[in-house]
């Protein structure tokens, strides 16, 4: 029984708040981007948004609104932490956050049978509401005629048709919102939210059926082509072959397509380095620019094309609707190691960065399953490791074909596979020994296949490029400058000459590197590598930049600033290179990831445990790889 509350007079000191609420994958984030001009991630699967996002929109009369994008949910009774976020915000249970003044219920017009249930529940809250009938174009194309006027009459609130991905209908939506806030910008009378009634799912469904019979009596069937495609893509054997082929193609493309743009960036960096060295008088600033900024930061910047190619494919898969199918396909495999099939998408997100991957585990209802997924997410190869892999593969793996496939692409595929296999193995151990829980069946809504939107693709790539360039120009640049300083000072004694060894050996970083070498020598790491590992804790790519700076300061000529790969190939043994690759498959996480694990688990215990087990695994794997390669004939470094 719903509790009726007296209307409350809400004092407003700031702008009104509008919350976008709806089922997962109905287009809330696309609508949010359209209304606010934000660039939140949009993809064709459920569970992309796991936290509230906020932006600003403007009504026709110039009044500003705060728009809140909430994680998708099927009902007001939450099953997962991300659905809990939605409920807490709507009912004003979130600390320090006012109840939204108006709800925009976003509905997937092609799936009213599922979406209207939540709308009916939202109506029960007694808040002002507008329904946005999104993907109206797809519904029309599918032959579904929706009587919006009748729907508005049945729901008792305005209904507006929108096509968020094509930037249609958002003005109509803002127009429909206007009258709700027209009374006064300073004060607004609204009822406080009523506690949601314990709604019976069967009653709700009966209401939905009744409304559908009135507003959209002819429901189209899903295209036969989609069923045929699913029969192949989700086949227990053929599906796995398709998945392996898709992943394989991605890693081949990362190496073969990126050659030309990478060479161009390398040449540009070399030209800038030469010009700087020739134009400036010798001194600390010239050394900082040539050895620190150009050798360090330029060395990382070179990998931008490879990162963008990787993300091009990830975005393509996300937009097409293939990912949830892959999750279903791998549910059996995941179940065998004790993980839920729902863990697939967080783990896949971790290929970009472990942080959004760990955040995405909020879609997993069972705490132990969620914890196990958080603990193994860092083993998936994040994009920050790609520059390290690419540098070492470029230096040590010859550019030749094996059965028509690039050996370098195969090696990269192997390294990514090593990350996945080790994640599964660690999850198996955790679930058997520590986080035991029964098998949780996977229930995931399969979205229809869609042609990837060029706009989303371009926006996604632009965002990734900006994130990478911000990192390069921000934290990586600052760490490179600090590393250059630590590698240059204290300066060598007055009577020093080059025959006594490089000047860097007398610097703070040189002394630290030689001290750390005692720990890392069994893995074949020299003192230069030992130095590079330390700033690599802040961000993985920094290790590449750090190697550039350290080798540039160690070398007599300025050739290192132009190209690091040939210098590494000449100075390291094959065993050392493979050992370093093995280190980076498991390498302890960057500090930001550990901080997010702390926040998501509300405890220091788990991030500390994660750092410890990853360090132990990295050390053991590197040692084993080094010894094995030496035994097989790779010379020691």
């Amino acid at each position, binding site marked *: 029984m719903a509790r009726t509350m007296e209307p409350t007079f809400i004092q407003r000191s700031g702008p009104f708040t509008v919350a976008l609420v709806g089922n997962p994958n109905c287009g809330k984030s696309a609508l949010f981007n359209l209304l606010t001009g934000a660039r939140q991630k949009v993809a064709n699967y459920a569970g992309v948004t796991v936290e509230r996002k906020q932006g600003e929109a403007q009504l026709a009369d110039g009044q500003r609104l705060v728009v809140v994008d909430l994680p998708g949910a099927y009902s007001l009774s939450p099953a997962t932490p991300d659905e809990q976020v939605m409920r807490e915000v709507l009912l004003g249970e979130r600390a320090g956050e006012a109840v939204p003044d108006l709800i925009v219920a976003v509905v997937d017009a092609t799936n009213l049978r599922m979406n209207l249930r939540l709308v009916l529940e939202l109506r029960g809250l007694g808040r002002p509401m507008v329904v946005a009938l999104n993907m109206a174009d797809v519904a029309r194309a599918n032959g579904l005629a929706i009587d919006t006027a009748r729907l508005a009459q049945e729901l008792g609130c305005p209904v507006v048709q929108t096509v968020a991905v094509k930037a249609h209908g958002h003005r109509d939506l803002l127009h429909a919102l206007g009258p709700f806030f027209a009374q006064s910008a300073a004060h607004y009378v609204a009822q406080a939210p009523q506690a949601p009634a314990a709604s019976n799912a069967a009653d709700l469904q009966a209401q939905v059926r009744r409304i559908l019979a009135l507003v959209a009596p002819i429901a189209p069937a899903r295209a036969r082509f989609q069923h045929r495609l699913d029969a192949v893509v989700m086949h227990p054997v053929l599906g796995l072959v398709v998945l392996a082929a898709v992943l394989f193609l991605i890693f081949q493309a990362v190496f073969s397509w990126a050659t030309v743009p990478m060479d161009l960036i390398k040449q540009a960096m070399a030209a800038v380095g030469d010009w700087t060295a020739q134009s400036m008088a010798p001194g600390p600033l010239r050394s900082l620019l040539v050895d620190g900024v150009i050798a360090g930061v330029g060395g990382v910047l070179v990998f931008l094309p490879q990162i963008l190619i990787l993300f091009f494919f990830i975005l393509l898969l996300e937009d097409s609707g293939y990912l949830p199918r892959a999750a279903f396909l791998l549910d059996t495999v995941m179940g065998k190691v004790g993980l839920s099939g729902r863990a697939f998408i967080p783990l896949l997100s971790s290929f970009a960065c472990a942080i959004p991957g760990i955040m995405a585990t909020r879609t997993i209802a069972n705490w132990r399953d*969620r914890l196990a997924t958080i603990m193994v997410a860092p083993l998936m190869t994040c994009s920050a490791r790609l520059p390290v892999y690419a540098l070492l593969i470029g230096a040590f793996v010859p550019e030749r074909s094996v059965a028509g496939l690039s050996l370098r692409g195969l090696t990269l595929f192997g390294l990514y596979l090593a990350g996945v296999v080790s994640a599964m193995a660690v999850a198996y151990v955790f679930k058997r020994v520590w986080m035991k829980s029964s098998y949780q069946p996977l229930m995931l809504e399969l979205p229809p296949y869609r042609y990837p939107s060029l706009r989303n693709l371009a926006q996604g790539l632009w965002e990734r490029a900006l994130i990478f360039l911000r990192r390069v120009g921000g934290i990586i640049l*600052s760490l490179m400058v600090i590393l250059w300083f630590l590698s240059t000072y204290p300066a060598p004694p007055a009577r020093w000459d080059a025959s006594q060894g490089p000047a860097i050996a007398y610097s703070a970083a040189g002394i630290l590197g030689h001290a750390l070498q005692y720990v890392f020598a069994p893995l074949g790491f020299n003192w230069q590598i030992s130095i590079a590992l330390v700033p690599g804790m802040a961000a993985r790519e920094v290790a590449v930049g750090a190697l550039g700076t350290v080798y540039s300061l160690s070398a007599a000529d300025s050739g290192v600033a132009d190209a690091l790969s040939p210098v590494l190939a000449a100075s390291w043994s094959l065993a050392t290179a493979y050992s370093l690759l093995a280190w980076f498959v498991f390498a302890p996480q960057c500090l930001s990831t550990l901080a997010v694990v702390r*926040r998501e688990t509300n405890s220091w215990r788990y991030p500390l445990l994660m750092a410890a087990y990853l360090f132990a695994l990295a050390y053991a794997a590197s040692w084993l790889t080094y010894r094995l390669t030496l035994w097989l004939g790779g010379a020691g470094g």
Partner: protein
Amino acid sequence: MRAWQDLITAALVVASFCYATWSLMPARWRGILTGAMLQWPLPAWARLRLSKATAGGACQCDGCDQGSPAPPAEKKIIFMQRRPRSGFAPKRTNRGV
């Protein structure tokens, strides 16, 4: 000329150290530090930039604004088992029960 190079280099190193420390410090410390700095008489643009910078981390990932909410009460899963009908077994009926 050498003195200028020394001066600019020192300024760049100090600025980089401050930036890296700010970016890598725990968010809570950054919040406390921002709170203290906002007490100073700063221009409006600096105050806005400072309060915006509080949220950012080294990884530049957004969406990390609040910690995980308390997990909802776990729902019990009811497993339905389909029993295949056997041709030899007598038909089950609820009639008369």
